[in-house]
């Protein structure tokens, strides 16, 4: 068994433990749980990072191309964002939703090594690495923004209905959730823009103008326009609550569509075996 599988499994177990212990932490708000969840998450992150580096080193490239590599990288970005939000805002509530997702994302890569390793001339191209890494960061931030909008909605409903106790009574304040939702979007915009630009440059060089008629590319441009529009609306009208959730969901749905469009794209299939 390769070493990265061992580290990944350790990380998986730690994420599993964190996913379970974060529930009483969020529900009860007791410090004793937080003292446990936080170090477990940090430990899981270290093992996860080591596993990913080892995995990529064994694959002889740094571009996450196969399903296992993308899942592991995306899960790591989710962990980093979650920890960053926790350190900045002390908002552990995100863990209740994100940690199980990370756990599920790692299940397959930790089960067995990748049977269909990807290797072609693009694997060592720095622009491809930039393109994929930036877009993964943008998707991660978009996911967190959507999650924050949902939490905002939950917190707003609780305060409106005057049901202060019970579950979710330890959610972050509305203003904090709003800041998280907005800032993740703001940071995500340059990542998405630069990621798409890097992809366009590669396409221009390799395929030419025909690349821009591909459904995947068109959807990507549509997603970017929607993203900018959402940011503009939020900034200038102070959009919050359920309308913000609808808008975030729409952009996220678009992002998923762009992802799925890989299957229908004729030119954006470099990662296919």
């Amino acid at each position: 068994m390769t070493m990265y599988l061992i580290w990944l499994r350790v990380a998986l177990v730690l994420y599993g433990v964190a996913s379970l212990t974060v529930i009483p932490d969020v529900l009860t708000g007791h410090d004793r749980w937080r003292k446990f969840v936080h170090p477990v998450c940090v430990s899981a992150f270290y093992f996860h990072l080591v596993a990913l580096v080892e995995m990529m080193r064994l694959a002889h490239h740094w571009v996450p191309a196969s399903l296992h590599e993308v899942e592991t990288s995306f899960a790591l970005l989710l962990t980093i964002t979650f920890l960053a939000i926790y350190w900045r805002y002390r908002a552990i509530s995100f863990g209740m939703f994100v940690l199980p997702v990370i756990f599920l994302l790692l299940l397959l890569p930790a089960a067995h090594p990748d049977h269909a390793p990807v290797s072609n001339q693009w694997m060592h191209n720095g622009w491809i690495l930039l393109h994929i890494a930036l877009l993964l960061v943008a998707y991660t931030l978009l996911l967190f923004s959507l999650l924050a909008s949902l939490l905002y909605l939950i917190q707003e409903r609780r305060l409106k209905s005057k049901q202060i106790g019970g579950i979710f009574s330890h959610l972050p304040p509305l203003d904090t959730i709003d800041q998280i939702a907005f800032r993740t979007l703001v940071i995500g915009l340059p990542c998405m823009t630069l990621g798409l630009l890097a992809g366009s440059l590669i396409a221009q060089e390799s395929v030419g103008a025909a690349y821009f008629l591909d459904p995947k590319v068109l959807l990507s441009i549509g997603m970017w326009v929607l993203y900018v529009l959402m940011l503009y609306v939020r900034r200038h009208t102070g959009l919050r609550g359920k309308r913000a959730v609808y808008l975030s969901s729409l952009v996220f749905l678009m992002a998923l569509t762009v992802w799925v469009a890989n299957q229908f794209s004729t030119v954006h299939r470099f990662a296919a075996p």
Partner: protein
Amino acid sequence: MNLVLIGVNHKSAPLEVRERLAIPAARLEEATLSLLSVPCVREGMILSTCNRVEFLTYQEPAQADLLEFIRNYFAVDTDALRPYIYEYRASEVVRHLFRVASSLDSLVIGEPQILGQVKGSYTVARSIGGVNNNLDPLMQRAFTVARKVRNQTSIGVSSVSIASVAVDLARKIFGSLQGKTILLMGAGKMGELAARSLMHQGAGKIYLCNRTDERAAELAEKFSSCPHAAGQSSATASPVAQAIPYASLHQVAATADIIVSSTGSEQPIFLRRDAELYMHRRKQRPMFFIDIAVPRDVDPEINGVEGVFVYNIDDLQAVAISNLSNRAKEALDAEAIVRAEVERYTRRMHSLDGVPSIVALQESLEEVRQNELRRMTSRLSHLTSEELHAVEQMTRSLVHKLQHAPIQAIKRAAQEGDRETLATIQSVFDLEHRAKDAEDAPITEKAKTSAPLPARAASESIESAFVPTPDATRPASSGTDSAPKSISEKEDCLP
């Protein structure tokens, strides 16, 4: 444990009785000195708050007439007071004190002030020598238990007063209240209190509005003279509290994050269309209406506007009551913690009875060893310094091995409360007088490194006497670099 506590509290006595026994903070020292002058009272402390007056004493023998003290000090008829007075002894005192410090015996369970009040009384009593070897460890433990209860349960987490519930809700909406703007509408007492609580949490500015501008100006003056407001006003150019004319109410309201309203108006002052206009001007930034007026000043329909939260007096009270019932649930966990701590402390108190005997035994054997070494000095004069050191080590080791079995027996007897065996051991080793001296002297003094050699060796060993060691026969540590620890510090390490 010759602990005796008598007192009255909000459960046992009405206010008329409590106020007759209340002792103002300025007279607490003098009252404690009077308590200490009662025959048989070795140590004493008085806790006097609006809800309780209690006299905690360590007596020897436990025969002091504290009722007599109350009769003399307060000049009251104690026969009439007797039905209201409770008395606790030994472990009951420990339990009561732990519950009081943990706020389990308070009128509002979990309120945080009581711990500060107990600490205040302790500080006064300690400063005049009322708290020593017997009450000090008990009080220290009570503070530790109170902290433990607060940390391990949520007993003090939720707010139970209208003003603090309002602050909590504002925090749930805005997070930090730093720099937030408040509008206080009307001159109701409750509204003023809520606004003050919000200002204490760091709100940046308060506008005051009333149908009569003079009243608003008066209130603004009051708020400006507040310590929290004054501190901020010096740092900012605009005044912290500002009266505004009633005509500009809606214009200013749009800039306020929190509106506290408590007027006597028969009609609502804030309507849904007003709130919608505010939100448009504010670019949907949330607003919080605290409506303490009856009849209501804020149209309940406003709660339907996105981003606006309206809480009236009933809503705030409902949250307070719900929080109170949550505290009652947490109190069950807290009681379990207190029960375990009382048992632990009581056990420890029994085991401490053996300390004087152990000290006496160690001193006695060390004295024998020193005398023998001194007697042999001339015969051993031909030995080198290394050989003399070896002899010194050998005799020390011998003494440690010899005293191991009796020390274990003393510890066992002390833990089981077997005074007969303790007395037998003291008699066999002729320790009665020494043990009595050891009891009278504070343990911390014995541990001082400046003490004569036998006492120092004994104090070094005493620290390890109650701490289980894998090899009890090993010589006591000769290192004296680390500061000696008092028994109370060591107690935390005991099981």
